[in-house]
Every structure is written in structure tokens, then in C-alpha cells.
């Protein structure tokens, strides 16, 4: 049962001109959140945009005793609300509805988990990394960006014993090129018998490539899609994505706020997925 929290902004860590991390006091959301879930955010001031915006829950914030006290959001500034999240100073407030959506499945050993993140698609993987670690599931983060200055929190993952593989398009950090490069090679090297789950979040093209690579090598994937969402609760039917239950069945438009945002990669009818407007 989601709550709507009038959350105090605890911190605002500006990582670059475009990215920041906002810390929010929201114990009830933090306590209930599962990896890959999201919140619907709005500003409560006269004239603020009407509709809420979806954000993955990035970190679970905890007090000294480890009790969940809040969440953080990894925000990329692209418009009005993401701009406001970038500007929001500690002491301000943001309305946060959540946690919402179907989470990632958290594999257990001996299965391995690979997380593939592009840009702000890193957001759902902090909580997933912690959950995997709790299960002692060996985990790797494949993380790509345009250049070194677009990669954040790498040491955060390393400190949590996540193996990290990096790629940048300009070669300024990690391998030069797309993150699907190393992913493809590593997939080819992994013994067929070794169980693996791949989780991906990032630009649609990247997720599609990951899902196809994985399928080609018979691996399961989960992708976290980012359609426009009007309500986050199943009320408006704006967030639909085309999925098919079997390879030959026709696709159906299902609500990604309820049945997603995490979907099995092979179920997504990538050809029919509308380009983000």
C-alpha cells in the first residue's frame, strides 16, 4: 500500500551540471521499497506542473541503527520537474507517492546477477545491489555513459563488492564504446551451465540490445522501462507498453506502472515500443 509522503529534502548532492542525488525523509516508503520500484513525485506549490513524475528509488537511507529513514533519487535534469529536483535545497519539500511497481527479482546463488546501466539508468541498481549482496549473489555492474564525467557512484558499488565494468563512448573511462561491447564478450565466455540473470535499465536502444544479446545466448533478462506515466497507480492507462506472453502471440498493451516497470526482456515487443517523445 503506497503512501504519499510530504518529504523533507535532507540533502542535494549535485554530481554534475545535469545529475544530482536528492535525499528525502520518507521512512514509510524506505521501509517498504523493493529493488526497482519507483515513486511519483510532485512539488506542492501553486502553479507546479499538474502531473507527477516517476523516479526510481535510488538508495535507501538509514539511521545509525540501520533503520530505514528515507530514500534518495538519482535525478537527471531534462525538464521542469527534474529541473526543480536539481534546484531543490535541503529544507524544502517534495511530495512522494510510493513505493510503486513490480520490483526486480533478486536471484540467489549459485546464480549470478549482471546489472546493465546506461546513464540515469543506474538509478534502480543501488537497491538491487544491496539486495543481491544480502543474498550473497555474485553481482556485476556494467555501466556505460558518454564520458567519464557521466559515471557516478562507481566506488559506492565497489564498496559493496560489486564487480564493475565501465565503458564510455569517448573512451575517457573504462572501455571505449558502448557497454554492450564488454557485455557481449563476457556473455560469450560464461559457461552455458552457469546460471545468470541480467537486469538492464537505460536508453531503450541499449535495453533492446541487451535483451537481444541475452536471448541469443539463452539468458534471462529483466528490463526497467521508462514510459510516460500519468498516475503510477493503474488509473489512467497512459503508461502502456507492448508485451507478448509467448514469441508467437500478438503483443498486448499493458500498464507498466502495475505490471512493470520491470519486465522480462524477451516479453517486450521492442519493435512496437513507441519512441520516447
Amino acid at each position, binding site marked *: 500500500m503506497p503512501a*504519499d509522503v510530504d518529504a523533507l529534502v535532507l540533502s542535494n548532492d549535485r554530481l554534475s551540471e545535469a545529475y544530482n542525488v536528492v535525499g528525502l525523509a520518507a521512512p514509510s516508503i524506505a521501509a517498504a521499497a523493493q529493488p526497482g520500484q519507483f515513486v511519483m513525485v510532485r512539488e506542492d506549490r501553486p502553479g507546479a506542473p499538474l502531473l507527477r513524475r516517476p523516479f526510481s528509488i535510488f538508495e535507501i537511507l538509514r539511521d545509525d541503527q540501520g533503520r530505514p529513514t528515507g530514500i534518495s533519487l538519482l535525478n537527471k535534469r531534462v525538464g521542469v520537474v527534474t529541473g526543480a529536483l536539481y534546484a531543490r535545497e535541503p529544507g524544502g519539500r517534495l511530495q512522494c507517492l510510493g513505493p510503486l511497481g513490480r520490483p526486480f527479482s533478486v536471484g540467489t546463488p549459485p546464480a549470478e546477477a549482471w546489472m546493465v546501466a546506461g546513464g540515469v539508468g543506474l538509478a534502480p541498481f543501488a537497491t538491487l545491489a544491496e539486495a543481491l549482496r544480502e543474498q550473497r549473489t555474485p553481482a556485476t555492474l556494467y555501466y556505460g555513459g558518454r564520458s567519464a564525467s557521466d559515471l557516478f557512484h562507481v566506488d559506492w558499488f565497489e564498496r559493496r563488492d560489486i564487480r564493475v565494468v565501465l565503458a564510455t563512448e569517448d573512451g575517457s573511462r573504462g572501455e571505449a564504446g558502448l557497454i554492450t561491447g564488454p557485455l557481449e564478450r563476457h556473455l560469450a565466455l560464461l559457461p552455458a551451465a552457469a546460471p545468470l540473470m541480467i537486469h538492464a535499465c537505460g536508453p531503450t536502444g541499449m535495453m533492446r540490445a541487451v535483451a537481444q544479446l541475452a536471448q541469443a545466448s539463452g539468458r534471462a533478462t529483466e528490463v526497467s522501462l521508462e514510459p510516460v506515466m500519468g498516475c503510477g497507480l493503474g488509473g489512467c*492507462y497512459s503508461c*502502456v507498453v507492448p508485451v507478448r506472453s509467448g514469441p508467437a502471440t500478438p503483443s498486448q498493451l499493458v500498464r507498466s506502472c502495475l505490471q512493470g516497470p520491470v519486465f522480462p526482456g524477451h516479453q517486450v515487443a521492442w519493435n512496437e515500443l513507441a519512441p520516447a517523445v
Partner: protein
Amino acid sequence: MSSINLTVNLGQLQLKNPLVAASGCFGYGTEYSDVVDLSTLGAIAVKGLFLQERPGHVPPRIVETPSGMLNAIGLQGIGVRRFIDERLPALRKHRAVVIVNICGTTVDEYAELARILSDAPGVAALELNISCPNIKEGGITFGCDLRGAHDVVSAVRRATSLPVIPKLTPNVTDVASFARAAEEAGADAVSLVNTFLAMAIDVETRRPRLSNVFGGLSGPAIRPIAVRMVYECRQAVRIPIMGMGGIMTAEDVVEFLVAGADAVQVGTANFVDPFVWPKLLDGLTGYLERHGHGAVRDIVGTVAVPGAAQRISS
């Protein structure tokens, strides 16, 4: 709670309070049972249903505009049979008062839907969507033509003893004439307004922002037009009116009641704040207390308009 009488009568249908969830903005109701006690709402107008399942439009289906939003969902839906089998039992369990919003491509389809739903336990009333701007056939074609509107209402009237509530489109020159046509055809009440046909273009790509090109405008932006239309219909008909369009606060609820609505529907506000319902109810109750009214119906249609004022056109 207080001693204020919040009940309202919509013809044969009595609601415990005048706050109704608007069709298409509250799923089939069951989606919201986690966040709203469905039995506390006056009623729920569920998402528009056809006889058959419908896939709806390709996304993008919504876009935000100044103080409003456009939608072109295209009436994606599970069809009336699955609704009766899969959703109605849960709604009954939650003690929700269910108004089923129905949509057809022919007069016969409306009548057929009405017959099917008359036999289903737990349907309180039928709202006839003759005003959806988002589908090619049916819907608004009836809503923009007085004869068509009259025919649909009459046919449904004959097919059911459930309360019949046609939902009017604002995309017409004279909405009051449609309210009159509905009244004459035997409607128990009318609801208005549905969304305004609209369009938004992405200037960078020079493509429509909605896959369907056109969409319906809802939200606070339309409220002043919707209030005017409710007022006009109040002058034109005796049957009850459910007013809507951009209601976000209890003050907005009162504005519609005072303009002449017997009950109100709340749509877009659910997306902004799913916990809005108790706030609206408390705000309305507080308003009535503050102004010394014992019942909601005491303020319905009480806007003080100088004698001379009337619609200028037509």
C-alpha cells in the same frame, strides 16, 4: 463526522455524498482500493466499456499542457463481460457504488450493453459516453448531434430500468440543448463535461505529441468553461446534473454545486493526488458548516445571478 446531510439524489439513485470518481481517471476502481476506501465515495464511474475488448491507442497517450492534460487513451478496455466477471465482484466486496460508463458504435450496441449490465448485480447506474473525443466511430458522433443523442438515450431507456445518465460533450455550440434532448429521451440525469478536443505539437519534431494526433483536454484549465456549461444546463433542465471539469479542491466542488450541479465528478485530480477524496469531503463539510447549511442540496444552484444575465449567444 458532522450532522450535515451529504446525501444527494440523482433521480432514482441516492448517493451518500456528491463526490464521484470520473470515468477513465480511476481505472475500474479496484486499482485504487489500496489508497482509497471505495465505500466512502458517492460513486465510482468506471473506465468506459465497450461490448468487446479494445486495445486502445499506441502511446504516447497523454501530454501535459498549461494547467491541464491531453489524453488519447482510445478506450482501451476489457469489454463488458470480463468487467462483470473480473471486476464487479471485487467492487461489490469493497461496497462501492458503481456507475458503468458505456460506449458503443451503434445505438444497438448501447442498448445491448445496457441489457447485459441490467442483469449484473452491483451496477447502480449507467453513464452513456456519447462524448469521447478519442475514438473514430460512435462516442462523440452521437454527442454532437441532437438526434443521435436522443436516439441513444431512448434506446437505452427502453432497454434498462437502471438510472440512465448520458455524459455530454463540451465540443458543441449549445450544450443545454443536448441536456434537454437527454431529458426528453428519458434520462435520469446528465453528466458533463467530457474533455475538450485538442492538439499539441512538438515544435522540434513538428509531430503531434499524441500518437492519435488529437486528444481530450481535462484539468483546471477547462474549469471555467465547464462551470458555465453546468450553469447553462441547470437553467435548461429539471433532471439532476453531475458536473465536472478541473475539480482539484473542495472549493472547486462547491463552485460546481453552486453553479447547479447536484453531484460532481473528479477525474484528473486522482492522478495529482490519489488521496484527494477525504480532503474534498472534509473541505465540503467544513464549507457547509461554516456557512450554516445542513445539507449539500441547500447550496445546489444557488449562485446569485442578476435577472438580466443569460447566455448571450443562441
